[in-house]
């Protein structure tokens, strides 16, 4: 712990009954910052030693909410966050795309404290805007290499055996703006193209059994009913690309966790996330989890759609263009502190963050506060689940020095999250997608926290 009175924790001051002039100055400053001067009786009263009582609420005085009646039940039939949480919203970056109907918004992970993303904060990615699909008239068709081509109503799907699991969805462009250098001053924009929800629906493999999929089918494709009629090819065992090259074995297993989802965090999907049904392919780039799903066809070759030849490809420095890079590899980031959550004075903190892997469970998260020279294993917060966000935490005592803080996740396959330089050495700076490198934040002496990159390892 620290040198001067100002660095002491409030508790230790209270215990010692210290009320020095330095201490008073500090208290006034805190009051001004925390409660905009309203409780400015501050120093000198009966609680002079206790910052908490003075800056939050004095229980012995009537407060703004004490002698009035609040709102009745169902005055807000669908509950909303406190008006003091208005800043916790999805945001977009206006210069990133030409139009918001073919664009992306970002989840504010800097303000979230669990592994579940509230439905209204799940990032959005549309190719022709979010549409309102009527569940009464909407249908799902499954056809192609099957014994029985079938058509289902939404009620049909809800009658079937259900499957529930918690999984993240991540756009492969998460972090893309940072390939060439530091660009965004907010964790929302460096890592917000990812969200994690509890999903309920019908397991794809159950439906496959029901319609009798031909074992010779090596691919399926899913298609949405929005303006873009977005379609993606999804590999199964034995899948080969258009040149006859096999896809990586792990990509070909992903469909086993797939479902046709109708519920997200217990309620119906939101329109922005595919209401009334979406394909959900945990572990793979979220573009494959087709929203507003209308059709699944079992086939024996990929479509090689627009999304697979023009969009979600990675031009590499050796002059090749990587395609079907589907799996979201292990990633992690510290969301407290971060550029959105700066230091508020010296003393105790808990470094917290999130880690996720498209290949399974998170096995370890290590944290460095010295730019990667030394690492300490963080505590993983239960539950730790496959293809799901895992929280981690580690106590940190900040004495006012500069630090480079970073997290490094390892998943159950043993894959260790790479450094940015390792990725750039292999992929250059034009590959856009799947940037899962270790994120460094710099804590300045002032307590500011900045987005930085480490360029030599």
């Amino acid at each position, binding site marked *: 712990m620290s040198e001067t009175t100002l660095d002491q924790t409030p508790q230790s001051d209270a215990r010692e009954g210290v009320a020095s002039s330095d201490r008073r100055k500090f208290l006034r400053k805190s009051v001004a910052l925390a409660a905009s001067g309203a409780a400015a009786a501050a120093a000198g009263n009966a609680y002079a030693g206790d910052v908490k009582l003075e800056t939050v609420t004095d229980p012995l005085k009537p407060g703004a909410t004490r002698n009035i009646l609040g709102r009745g039940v169902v005055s807000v039939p669908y509950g909303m966050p406190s008006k003091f949480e208005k800043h916790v919203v999805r945001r977009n970056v206006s210069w990133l795309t030409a*139009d918001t109907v*073919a664009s992306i918004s970002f989840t504010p992970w800097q303000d979230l404290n669990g592994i579940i993303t509230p439905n209204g904060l799940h990032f959005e990615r549309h190719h*022709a805007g979010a549409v309102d699909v009527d569940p009464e008239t909407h249908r799902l068709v499954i*056809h192609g290499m099957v014994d*029985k*081509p079938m*058509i289902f*109503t939404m009620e049909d799907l809800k009658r*079937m055996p259900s499957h529930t699991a918690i999984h993240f969805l991540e756009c492969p462009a998460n972090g893309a703006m940072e390939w060439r*250098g*530091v*660009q*965004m*001053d*907010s964790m929302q924009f460096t890592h917000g193209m990812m969200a994690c929800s509890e999903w309920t629906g019908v397991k794809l493999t159950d439906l496959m059994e*029901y319609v009798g999929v031909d074992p010779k089918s090596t691919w399926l494709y899913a298609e949405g009913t929005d*303006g873009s*009629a977005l379609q993606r090819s999804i590999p199964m065992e034995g899948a080969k*690309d258009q040149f006859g090259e096999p896809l*990586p074995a792990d*990509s070909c297993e992903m469909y086993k966790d797939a479902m046709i989802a109708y519920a997200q965090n217990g309620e119906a999907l939101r329109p922005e996330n595919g209401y009334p049904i979406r394909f959900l392919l945990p572990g793979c780039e979220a573009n494959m989890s087709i929203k507003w799903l*209308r*059709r699944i*066809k079992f086939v024996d*070759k*990929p*479509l*090689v*759609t*627009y999304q697979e*030849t*023009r969009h979600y*490809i990675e*031009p590499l*420095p050796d*002059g090749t*263009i*990587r*395609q079907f*890079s589907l*799996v979201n590899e292990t990633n992690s980031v510290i969301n407290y502190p971060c550029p959105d959550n700066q230091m508020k004075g010296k003393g105790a903190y808990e470094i917290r963050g999130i880690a996720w892997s498209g290949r399974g469970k998170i096995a*370890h998260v290590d944290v460095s506060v010295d*730019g*990667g020279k030394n*690492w300490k294993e963080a505590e993983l917060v239960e539950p730790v689940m496959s293809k799901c966000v895992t929280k981690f935490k580690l106590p940190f005592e900040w004495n006012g020095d500069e630090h*480079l803080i970073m997290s490094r996740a390892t998943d159950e396959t043993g894959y*260790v999250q*790479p*450094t940015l330089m390792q990725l750039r050495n*292999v992929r250059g700076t*034009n590959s856009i997608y*799947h940037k899962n490198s270790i994120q460094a934040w*710099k804590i300045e002496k002032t307590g500011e926290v900045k*987005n*930085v*990159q*480490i*360029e*030599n*390892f």
Partner: protein
Amino acid sequence: MSKLKTSKFGLGLAAGVMALGLSTAGIAGGFNGIGANITEKAVDPWDISVFYDGTNLPKGSGTVEAGQQPYDAKCAMCHGAFGEGAEGYPKMAGDPMPAFIQSLKQGLDGVGNRGVNNAWGHAPTLFDMIKRHMPFYAPGTMGVDESYAVTCYVLNLGGIVDMDFTCSNETLADVDMPAREYYVTDTRPDVDNKRCMSDCYDEKPKVVGAAVTGVSE
């Protein structure tokens, strides 16, 4: 049963009595009786998906010349009269393949330079995209022949087909797309970081910063 209605236990007893008459054979569950069969013929109007090799291309055709009018009217405001792109909308014609590859090798920004001539493996996919998704403000509203014509016009803008070329379900799969041979399937993991815990580097970290501020509207 009716006498029991006044009892606070009535409801539970009544349910119990009724259950005696029910079979437990249905507990197995599953999918039986759910959904309806449909023929491939009935699905046909939905099945607009075209494979890279031209499978499922609809019957029809359009020339480069026939594509100019609809392209200028419906596409040029976003993609440029010469396919050069506009205001954040994609180019149709990017750097030719050798220059595109060179920019990748030199680490220059090649992303904004993608077009049909350097980042499309197969011409039928271009038709599929246009028919399915274009024009942007009224997606899926172009006819089959019109879509072939616009496909042809865009391929010509990219220097891929001559002025006198006709795009059709017969010809499109054989169009030689310059980028085709450059595609390789995923080979990740392509990096192998180690879980070093102490004294991992001798060098001091070289830190670069300067994030843009004020991007969050």
